[in-house]
C-alpha cells in the first residue's frame, strides 16, 4: 500500500476513489480504539463507537477541509459519538441518585481539574487537552502552528501552573 498523506487521501476520496478510505481506517483505528477504550471499558461498545465514528467521518468527507488534518476532526466525531452513547445509556438506565452522588464523591478531582484548566491561558489549555488525547508533540506543534520546542515550553509551563494552582487550592 502506498504511503499517502491525509490530504492526498481526502482528495482521492472526494474524487470518488473510496477505496482510499482504507488508508485512513488503517492509520487511525488503533489510536481511536485506545482512546475510546480508556473511557469505556466494554469492548463491544468501544467497537461500535469506533465503527460509527469512522462512518460519520466518511459521511463528512465531502465537507472536510483537505488542508487540515483528519485526526482532530476524527477526535471531535469520537467525542460526539461517546456523548451520544452516554446519553443513550442514561436514557435506558435511570441512575439512582444515591449512586450518582457517590460517584461524584469518588472523583472530586475531575471537577477541580476542569476548574483549574479554565484558568490557564487558551494556548496552554489547548496544548494540555491535546496531550491528554494522545497527540504527539510533533502533531500538536503542527496543529498550533508553533515550533516543537515552543510547544514543549507551553506544555511545561501549563503543567507547572496547574500544579501551583493545585497546591494553592489545597492551602
Amino acid at each position, binding site marked *: 500500500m502506498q504511503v499517502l498523506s491525509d490530504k492526498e487521501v481526502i482528495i482521492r476520496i472526494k474524487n*470518488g476513489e*473510496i477505496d482510499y478510505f482504507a488508508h485512513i*481506517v488503517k492509520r487511525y483505528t488503533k489510536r481511536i*480504539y485506545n482512546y475510546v477504550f480508556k473511557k469505556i471499558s466494554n469492548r463491544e461498545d468501544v*467497537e461500535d463507537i469506533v465503527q460509527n465514528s469512522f*462512518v460519520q467521518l*466518511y459521511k463528512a468527507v465531502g465537507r472536510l477541509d483537505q488542508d487540515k488534518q483528519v485526526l482532530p476532526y476524527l477526535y471531535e466525531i469520537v467525542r460526539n459519538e461517546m456523548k451520544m452513547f452516554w446519553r443513550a445509556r442514561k436514557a435506558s438506565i435511570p441512575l439512582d441518585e444515591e449512586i450518582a452522588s457517590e460517584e461524584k464523591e469518588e472523583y472530586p478531582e475531575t471537577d477541580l481539574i476542569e476548574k483549574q484548566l479554565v484558568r490557564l491561558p487558551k494556548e496552554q489549555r489547548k496544548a494540555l487537552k491535546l496531550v491528554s488525547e494522545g497527540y504527539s508533540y510533533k502533531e500538536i506543534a503542527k496543529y498550533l502552528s508553533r515550533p516543537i520546542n515552543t510547544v514543549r515550553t507551553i506544555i511545561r509551563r501549563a503543567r507547572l501552573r496547574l500544579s501551583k494552582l493545585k497546591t494553592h487550592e489545597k492551602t
Partner: protein
Amino acid sequence: MKKLEKKILKKVYSFETRQTLSELALRLLAMMSLILGSILLCVFIVRELIQQQTLDVFEIFFEDLGVVSENIGEVTATFLQELPKVEMFLAIVAIVLSFLLVVKFMQNFVKVKNKINSIVKFWFVH
C-alpha cells in the same frame, strides 16, 4: 484490530453502496422522465399547431423578401398568440431542467464511475 478495520470498511461500503445506487437511480429516473416529458410536450405542441393550421403562417417565407420583411411582425404576433402557452411553458421548464441534470451528471460522471469501480472491487473482488 484487522477484524475491526474490516468491520468499519464493510459498514462504510454498505452505506456508500446504498447511497450511490439510490442516487444514481433517482438521477436517471428524473432525467428520463424529464426528457420523456419534454418530448411528449413538444409533440403535443406541434400537433396542436398543425391542427390549428398555425404553421401555415410560415408559408410567407416562400414569398419575396420584401413581402417577408413587411409581414414578419404580424406573422410572429399571430404565431405567438396561437401557441399553447401553458404547454409551451412546461416544455421549456422540462427542457431546461433536463439539460441541467444532464450537465450535472456529466460533471459528476468520473466521480460516480470511480465510486462504482471501488464498490464493485470491494464486494466482488475482495
